């Protein structure tokens, strides 16, 4: 077994950022395995899971709705339930919301146009494992490319999430009509995060920004911690 932590990138029909995600995570020190949506189990040594961007199932019904019922999703849910880190990027975020693993839902951009450009984000909360390399108030530049990125939750839920630090990042301007300019949210236990911007496209300053690397490197850190914990459990069983 490689001493690099294993990150599983799930491939759905219509995923198109799976390879970029795999490349970036590899460059940041992870061993990456791509897992087909029809798989019933994740590899045993999985330290983190990424649901990549794309247009799974052609965005039929609602973006992410069909993929949220994919055969692999119960395994992802079980992994998250025991504290495993799960990151959903763009379509991955939509899938996690539709799977009700994250609060809210992503709706068509209010301007009804696809947005594809670098945006700046403000870090709102650093409590979750994904934000360990960032500071509150820090500004990150990461590209977005989506037609359905307007995050929505009803007002009661929104207030609750903000109070609990589950609103992780906001756009510094109105990008798509997202409620409260929300760009990223995390679940209550802080181990499942979704964001519309694409950190895997921002890991090298030659391409404009390396800020996305801060988020992905934190995920690789968390995967490594988890792998260590698993090793320790195995040793514990033996003695």
């Amino acid at each position, binding site marked *: 077994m490689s001493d690099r932590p294993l990150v599983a990138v799930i491939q759905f029909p219509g995923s198109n950022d799976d390879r970029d995600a795999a490349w970036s995570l590899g460059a940041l020190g992870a061993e990456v395995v791509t897992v087909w949506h029809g798989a019933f189990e994740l590899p045993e040594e999985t330290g983190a899971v990424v649901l990549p961007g794309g247009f799974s199932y052609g965005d039929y*019904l609602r973006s992410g*709705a069909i993929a949220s019922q994919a055969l692999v999703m119960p395994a992802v849910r079980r992994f998250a339930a025991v504290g495993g880190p799960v990151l959903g990027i763009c379509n991955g975020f939509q899938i996690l919301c539709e799977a009700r693993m994250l609060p*809210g839902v992503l*709706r068509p*951009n*209010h*301007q009804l146009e696809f947005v594809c450009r670098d945006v700046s984000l403000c870090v709102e909360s650093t409590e979750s494992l994904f934000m360990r390399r960032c500071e509150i108030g820090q500004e990150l530049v990461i590209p977005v490319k989506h037609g359905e990125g307007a995050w*929505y939750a009803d007002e009661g839920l929104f207030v609750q999430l903000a109070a609990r630090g589950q609103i992780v990042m906001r756009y510094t301007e109105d990008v798509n*009509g997202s409620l409260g300019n929300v760009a990223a949210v995390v679940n209550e236990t802080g181990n499942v995060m979704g964001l519309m911007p694409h950190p895997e496209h921002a890991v090298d300053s030659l391409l404009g920004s390396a800020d996305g690397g801060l988020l992905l490197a934190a995920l690789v850190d968390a995967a490594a911690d988890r792998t260590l914990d698993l090793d320790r459990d195995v040793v514990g069983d033996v003695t």
Partner: protein
Amino acid sequence: MSEPADEAKLVRATVLVRPKQGILDPQGQAVQASLEKLGFSVEAVRIGRVIDLEVEARSGEDARKQLELMCDSLLANPLIESFEVQLGET
């Protein structure tokens, strides 16, 4: 009218999914603006979805239960959409 309890039959149904009241519907707004450009006087446009299904069910009531479950689990997102089940002829 009573129906035989266990015999499954094909029930036709239509599910209407609509954006909930108060939820912004940019698609509806764009269509409204377009209709106004054509000279129509339109107060509001909301765009939803029509889903026609044929389901196997033991009774109308059974079909309705199944369809409501389908709506809750996949056909509609309760955060932003409401749904209406209409049963057709059996």
